[in-house]
């Protein structure tokens, strides 16, 4: 498969009145369409900064990011960005939350609305469409947030510690839900996490970053294939081997 996304020699330096901080240094990698990538690294290493460059929220100091041959230089509708916790608006019902992105982009067409309805039905939220976020479980809320992101049909999904606000059990289950939904919608995903089990169980490749300024310390191929159960794989020897490699790399 050809290159879908290419991150080329990304450098990111932050300027503050106190001085400058280099967050990311010469990071390059490519992603194929439909691939799931995890970026892990010690906390504060600049992995979130890297993701916000790919999202176009931050512009890199040096280097470029190409998505399907087009250069990312600003917020575009190509990338769907999901942040820590679901960020649903408590004053909007589930349906209204799901169409928020379409509303902002003024794309509330019949076609897009029926796509949202279809997603809500497919992922068990249709009967809750008139409920408010406060009455839903953490897992359901995360699914709504995902549908809100998918509704605008992004080419690429970016998850920044998207599950870290959830308790352990919900987190594992939501991870499986999100994995299955994204695979069945044939999405390409890059996620940033500090949770090694999450990275190994949910992706095709794990990119380990070093301490700040972040450089790629190692790339680990995960051999589970697309049709996997992200909970069940955690009991395999291959999982433990991958986990150990990532763990060792991060501890260095």
């Amino acid at each position, binding site marked *: 498969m050809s290159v879908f996304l290419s991150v080329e020699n990304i450098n990111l330096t932050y300027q503050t009145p106190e001085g400058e901080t280099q967050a990311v240094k010469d990071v390059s990698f490519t992603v194929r369409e439909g691939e799931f990538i995890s970026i892990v690294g010690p906390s504060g290493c600049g992995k979130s900064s890297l993701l916000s460059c790919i999202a176009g929220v931050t512009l890199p100091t040096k280097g470029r990011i190409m998505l399907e041959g087009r250069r990312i230089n600003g917020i575009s*509708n190509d990338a769907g*960005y999901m*942040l820590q916790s679901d*960020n649903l*608006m*408590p*004053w909007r*019902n589930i349906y209204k939350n799901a169409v928020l992105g379409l509303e*902002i982009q003024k794309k509330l067409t019949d076609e897009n609305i029926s796509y949202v309805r279809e997603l809500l039905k497919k992922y068990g939220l249709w009967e809750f469409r008139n409920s408010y976020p406060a009455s839903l479980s953490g897992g359901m809320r995360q699914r709504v947030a995902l549908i809100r992101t998918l509704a605008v049909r992004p080419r690429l999904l970016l998850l920044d510690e998207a599950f870290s606000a959830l308790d352990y059990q919900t987190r594992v289950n939501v991870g499986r839900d999100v994995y299955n939904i994204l695979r069945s919608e044939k999405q390409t995903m890059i996620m940033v996490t500090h949770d090694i089990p999450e990275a190994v169980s949910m992706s095709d490749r794990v990119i380990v970053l070093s301490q700040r300024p972040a450089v790629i310390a190692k790339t680990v191929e995960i051999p589970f294939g697309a049709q996997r159960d992200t909970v069940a794989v955690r009991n395999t020897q291959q999982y433990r081997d991958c986990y150990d490699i990532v763990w060792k790399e991060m501890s260095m």
Partner: protein
Amino acid sequence: MNNTIYTRQQYLEIIRKEKNTVRLVQVMLVVVFLAAWEIAAYTGVIDAFIVSSPSRMVSTFFLMAQSDLAVHILYTVGETIVGFTIGVVLGFFMAVGLWYSDFVSRVAAPFLVVTNSLPKIALGPVIIVWVGAGISAIITMAVAISLIVTVMELSHGFYATDKNMMVTVQSFGADKWQIFQKVVMPYNIPVLFQSLKVNIGLSLVGVIAGEFLVSKAGLGYLIVYAGQVFKMDLVMMSVVLLGFIAFLMYSAVSGLEKLAVKIINHI
């Protein structure tokens, strides 16, 4: 008290009883206070000519009610509502402006702090000279007192809006106005009402202060006039009436808040 609650019924019963007890004690406090006041005045322990008494206030009220008390109340309430509305609307737009432009907000910050701490009543003579002695001066005073507080409180709320929610709409490409519309405004409905509740009281303060300075009608006028001619019954009655009015207006805003939060915010 036993902390173990056995049934739902028992629990509700305890809640109800506690609520009733609080209410009962509140009523009793008022009754005891009024009775003590009345008895002290009746027996001559205190001078009713100086401190009035509940019965004298009641008879003054009925006497005044037959003449022009309603007009005075109408003036004060009307001026307060107009001043409150102008202060809130103006303050809201100023706060939106400050939120919209970081530069303007940073430039304005020290001026806001100074204006906020300035006792607005000191502006009384200036206001009279500038807008004329009359209702407009009273309303201007009410606005002067409530405006800056609204601006400060609202812009504080706008700045404290959940950052992640804002980034979420931004990631969909929302412009600044859309961020305000979709996140900042609905997020700050409780803050808005909090400031309304403070402001209705402040506007009343402004109106009374204004009426003290220039007026031909209103409860503030009544208090000043009655004080000068030593009609303490009328002064005290007007003060009590003001208390009632303040309470009623606050309750109206508070009721509106409950309604709005229910309809808009679903919290």
